């Protein structure tokens, strides 16, 4: 699955900050955040990568710098080549990168999702609202510090909350989540195994 064009070399000529990115499948490249719209436009218009397959992000955890990386997967529908482009957000506290909605209209909802889940701002996005969680939800759930169970918050609808007394609660994990860790133990003996024994209906949650 090698690309018919050496994307990295071509990019490096125009954008000297480009560096190769370790990848097991398709060619991948790291770019500076400032180069993003121009480099993607170059790939789309001059290298034939006309289709934005996916746009997502990585949170490398608190304390790591750079903390957030935005990843673009591009496909050339003519040559059937893929390329992966990644860029680190310059700021760890207020991560932001330029929007590519003007290049691919399909990036619109992808960027909204990344904004919703990671809190990365896409400058120049025409309508950067949350897409999965409701407007006004105070957290970004796919950030590493956010617990899977969730955090106690009010319901999106204050009227319904007053009527029912229900809230968004930290979900009872009941000994879960059940995940396999290869190498640590004999999986056939130990599944399912608890990673987070936070609390169950019968046993109170230990103070964090």
């Amino acid at each position, binding site marked *: 699955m090698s690309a018919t064009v050496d994307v990295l070399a071509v990019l490096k000529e125009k954008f000297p900050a480009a560096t190769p990115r370790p990848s097991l499948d398709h060619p991948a490249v790291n770019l500076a955040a400032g180069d993003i719209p121009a480099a993607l436009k170059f790939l789309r218009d001059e290298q034939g990568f006309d289709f934005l397959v996916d746009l997502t992000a990585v949170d490398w955890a608190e304390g790591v710098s750079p903390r957030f990386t935005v990843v673009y997967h591009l496909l050339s529908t003519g040559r059937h080549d893929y390329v992966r482009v990644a860029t680190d957000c310059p700021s760890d506290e207020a991560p932001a990168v330029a929007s590519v909605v003007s290049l691919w209209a399909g990036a619109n909802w992808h960027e909204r999702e990344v904004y919703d889940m990671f809190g990365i701002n896409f400058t120049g996005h025409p309508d950067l609202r949350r897409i*999965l969680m409701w407007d006004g939800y105070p957290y970004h759930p796919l950030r590493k510090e956010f617990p*899977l169970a969730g955090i106690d918050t009010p*319901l999106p*609808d204050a009227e319904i909350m007053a009527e*029912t007394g*229900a809230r968004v609660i930290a*979900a009872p994990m*009941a000994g879960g989540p059940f995940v396999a860790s290869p190498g640590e133990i004999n999986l056939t003996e130990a599944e399912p195994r608890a990673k987070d024994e936070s609390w169950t209906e019968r046993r109170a949650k230990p103070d964090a």
Partner: protein
Amino acid sequence: MVTTNTEIAYNSKIEGEVIVSRMDSIINWIRTNSMWPMPMGLACCAIELMGTASSRFDIARFGAEVMRFSPRQSDCMIVAGTVTYKMASAVRRIYDQMAEPKWVIAMGACASSGGMYRSYATLQGVDHIVPVDVYISGCPPRPEALLDALMKLQAKVRHERSATNLRRA
């Protein structure tokens, strides 16, 4: 006792067009056999709900085939699927729009308890926001389980004191 009366069934010539019964039984009889569902299909369980409605399982045999997509015309909300917090408000509003008397069936693990979705996004059981009459286990429950739940609900309604409640209301 010796009697000349050989009638063993209701004879309208003797008793007129009158049947004597209790208001409770009549009202409940009407309610149980025309329980129109509000199909609150939110995830995979809704597929099984559709299966229950169609010919192989035929929920019409129990008088509940008329899926009403208008809450005003439905009696029983079948919550079939994962209720997210974002959807929960809509579920409750639709429940509020249904006319009394109304019942709720929580179909499947998700609607009953959040199911496998122990997460920040999922309501941990629809009974947090609406009163549930019957819970069905399963992921998804078999259509027979839904029919069983419907029959359980009908049995429950048969014992309601509908007339007394009407007078009180």
